[in-house]
């Protein structure tokens, strides 16, 4: 694979020009990959369905100093991630599913809140006006009714995802309190049913 030096130069020049125009400072990120944590690399592999062999081929292509994790480090990190509460799964005759849905949802909320990506969603009344939530949530006895519209809430969507190479039915949870709730990386795969 050859990289056109002129094209690369043009891209960098364009980035610098935009940074100057916006009053910012452009920094050439020549050590960015060194700072890429192993967990992030694992997430990239899982999210993009990259096989370990392809990733290692890419690592060898980039060279030993590129900062990409070794197969053993990646495997160890994936195993560690699989034992965390939010990722732990179980399977039985009905299919495979998350053991602790609460841990998965709270991890997503924590991530959204920490990254300042949590977006408040409001309800609208019968007249179309936005309803302001002011009350805290103290728990409710039954799940059979919706909470009052005056209570602070989060909107969790449950949907099905059918199809795939092997026909299956997947229950997917997404949180509407973010900018792109339906993107694949923002959703929680709750379970897979054959």
């Amino acid at each position: 694979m050859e990289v056109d030096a002129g094209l690369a130069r043009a891209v960098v020049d364009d980035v610098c020009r935009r940074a100057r125009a916006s009053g910012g400072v452009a920094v050439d990120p020549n050590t960015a990959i060194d700072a890429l944590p192993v967990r992030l690399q694992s997430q990239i592999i899982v999210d993009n369905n990259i096989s370990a062999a392809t990733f290692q081929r890419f690592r060898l292509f980039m060279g030993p100093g590129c900062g990409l994790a070794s197969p053993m480090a990646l495997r160890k990190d994936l195993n560690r991630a699989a034992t965390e509460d939010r990722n732990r799964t179980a399977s039985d005759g009905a299919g495979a599913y998350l053991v602790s849905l609460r841990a998965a949802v709270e991890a997503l909320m924590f991530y959204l809140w920490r990254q300042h990506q949590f977006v408040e969603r409001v309800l609208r009344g019968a007249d179309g006006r936005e309803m302001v939530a002011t009350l805290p949530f103290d728990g409710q006895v039954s799940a059979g009714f919706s909470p009052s519209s005056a209570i602070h809430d989060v909107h969790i969507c449950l949907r099905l995802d059918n199809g795939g190479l092997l026909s299956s039915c997947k229950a997917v949870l997404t949180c509407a309190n973010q900018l792109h709730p339906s993107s694949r990386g923002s959703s929680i795969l709750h379970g897979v049913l054959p």
Partner: protein
Amino acid sequence: MAAVYVPDLDTLRTGGVDVGGSRRAVRLILIGDYAFMISWVGHKGASSRMPCLWCTALRRRTQQNGLMVDKWGNI
């Protein structure tokens, strides 16, 4: 299917989730086709006497259901 997922979801809805240090209620929104939603909720479907998932309107007025139509309306 619902037998596996409903207990978890009910726990979320009764207990809420922690967001930024405060507890919030969970509002569950079903997304999908009508067949999925009626099977999840336990509704009898579009051919039942009350075919709509979101309201109580009856299908049509018949000789027997006049009082119910007066009370709940029809489509």
